[in-house]
């Protein structure tokens, strides 16, 4: 029976709202804007953070990157025509890190250099990555053709290379990639495999680039040596770097940060010039999540304020409506409506009003992010919870701000109300 009464009240509420279309629409506008902007802002925030998380995940949340870099002291040395810098990670560092803790599952040494790759008349700059087969386990990319490097390749100093998809397509421009021989620097390498290209992250340092040639570390050292020379603007930069990067995979996620701290402490001792930097994707992930939480709190406050403003608008109109309908309330009371039934009538009306406002707001909240993505290309994701939450809140706003006008309506003296014109 109470269900039936609620349904009837709902019908009557809708009827009253429809009989004042313009007024009702204006009344709900506050809630519409509140809900719409909250959903839209959450969608933009969620889109941005998901993009960042995606990039971080690509690096691997259990990985630690240690990257060699010229120390600040080295950079500040006065310009000379020939400069020889010796910096970066050492082969011993790899051994030291390996010995540091059993928490480390894999460790991958990396040497990098830039050389032109040549095939027939085609020529393009490649990043030549000298590494071990474990690289492909730490930086898992789909194998598109052939195979990846193997332990045997290192032992035999094999002149083989694995290309990334983009590099292979640009350099070879052919379907038959496997078995082709390309020239890298002065040497010839057989292409044994092609892997998917990394996207190249913006938020995080990703180990792989779009155009990489992976060769056995041993072969690279043997063929190109340890010294890298670069001629630029009349000066010659000569570098001697043993390892450019060391990638570390930790066995468990919860050990990542302690392990990173231990490695850092150890490296500080052996590299007082700090010619390396560490990148811990998990820490970045944490940071990204923290940022998102802060963002959500700020958004929540804005949402709260705008919905309170919307609620006050509704309350204002409902108070006017109660005054306007004093006589009607008197009639209903005279006929035999209880106070609670009058309260119910007005409450349901405000809830319908704010609920309809919420629904319109949700439509706006779905349309705005779509429009943003379309015009600016920014990724947006509308989380389902934001729809449910904002609709629930808008109905509760109706409930809370409708209560006072409804109680005022119910408190009217029936005789006085009947006399009201």
């Amino acid at each position, binding site marked *: 029976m109470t269900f039936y009464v609620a349904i009837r009240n709902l019908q009557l509420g809708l009827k009253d709202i429809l009989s004042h279309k313009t007024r009702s629409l204006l009344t709900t506008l506050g809630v519409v804007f509140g809900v719409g902007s909250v959903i839209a802002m959450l969608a933009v925030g969620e889109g941005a953070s998901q993009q960042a998380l995606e990039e971080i995940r690509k690096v691997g949340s259990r990985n630690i990157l240690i990257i060699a870099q010229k120390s600040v002291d080295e950079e500040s040395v006065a310009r000379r025509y020939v400069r020889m810098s010796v910096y970066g990670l050492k082969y011993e560092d790899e051994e030291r890190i390996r010995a540091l803790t059993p928490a480390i599952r894999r460790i991958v040494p990396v040497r990098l250099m830039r050389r032109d790759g040549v095939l027939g008349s085609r020529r393009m700059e490649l990043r030549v990555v000298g590494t071990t087969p474990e690289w492909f386990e730490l930086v898992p990319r789909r194998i598109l053709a052939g195979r990846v490097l193997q332990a045997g390749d290192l032992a035999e100093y094999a002149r083989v290379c694995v290309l990334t998809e983009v590099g292979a397509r640009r350099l070879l421009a052919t379907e038959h990639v496997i078995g082709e021989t390309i020239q890298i620097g002065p040497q010839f390498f057989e292409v044994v495999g092609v892997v998917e290209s990394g996207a190249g992250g913006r938020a995080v340092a990703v180990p792989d680039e779009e155009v990489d040639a992976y060769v056995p570390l041993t072969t690279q050292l043997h063929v190109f040596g340890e010294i890298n020379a670069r001629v630029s603007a009349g000066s010659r930069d000569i570098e001697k770097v043993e390892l450019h990067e060391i990638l570390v995979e930790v066995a468990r996620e919860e050990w990542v940060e302690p392990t990173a701290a231990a490695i850092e402490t150890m490296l500080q001792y052996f590299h007082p010039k700090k010619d390396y930097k560490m990148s811990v994707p998990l820490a970045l992930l944490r940071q990204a999540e923290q940022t998102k939480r802060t963002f959500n709190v700020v958004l929540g406050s804005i949402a709260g304020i705008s919905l309170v403003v919307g609620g006050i608008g509704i309350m204002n109109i409902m108070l006017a409506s109660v005054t306007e309908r004093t006589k009607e309330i008197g009639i209903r009371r005279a*006929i*035999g409506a209880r*106070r609670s039934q009058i309260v119910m009538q007005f409450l349901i009306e405000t809830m319908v009003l704010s609920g309809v406002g919420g629904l319109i707001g949700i439509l706006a909240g779905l349309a705005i992010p779509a429009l943003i993505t379309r015009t600016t290309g920014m990724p947006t994701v509308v989380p389902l919870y934001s729809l449910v939450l904002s609709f629930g809140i808008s109905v509760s706003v109706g409930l809370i701000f409708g209560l006072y006008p409804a109680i005022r309506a119910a408190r009217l003296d029936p005789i006085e109300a*009947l006399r009201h014109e």
Partner: protein
Amino acid sequence: MAPVMIRLENVTKVYRLGAEDVHALRGVDLEVGSGEFVALMGPSGSGKSTLMNLIGCLDRPTSGRYWLDGQNVETMDDDNLSMYRLKHLGFVFQSFNLIPQLTVLENIELPMFYRGVPAAESRERAAALARRVGLGGRLKHRPSELSGGQCQLVAIARALANDPPVILADEPTGNLDSRTGEQIMQILEELHRDGRTIVLVTHEPDIARYAKRRIYLRDGRIEREEHAA
């Protein structure tokens, strides 16, 4: 004699109007039997509206006691008073007091809605009541589309919705021309013949003529009574 439907014992009503006390009723004793047709008459300020509000359970007396249909009313709380109005009383007002945004059918259904009568049943009964007062073809109309007489017919149908034993009519013909007034009074007389107790407030002797018993009020007291032959 028929059982007593309305019984007032030394009822007084005092309003505070600013600093002054207004004695609207100064001790009224009244008994109305079940099925009686009573007219309350008197000049304005005689207390007949106040008495009507008390009988109609819209107000409580300042002192004295009131029984309606065997129940002591003056001690009831607001919810019970509302329930009593809903089930025992039907109101017919001078200004009709229909709800303008509701249709004829919905206006008649209103008391059943508050009693929780299921929709199908209440719609059917409301339609039957509308037919009874001759408005079967106007169910979807709004009060603004009806004449004054038709509005009063709707109000009567609404008063009958929960089949109450008592009908209170407060100047029911006051806003109508004499011909429509006659028509309304004939329907009230019909209800009286059905066995309902009817209390009519009027200051027109022609209208009061329909009642078998006429009670004259003056200065908050019953001045005299007349019984029709």
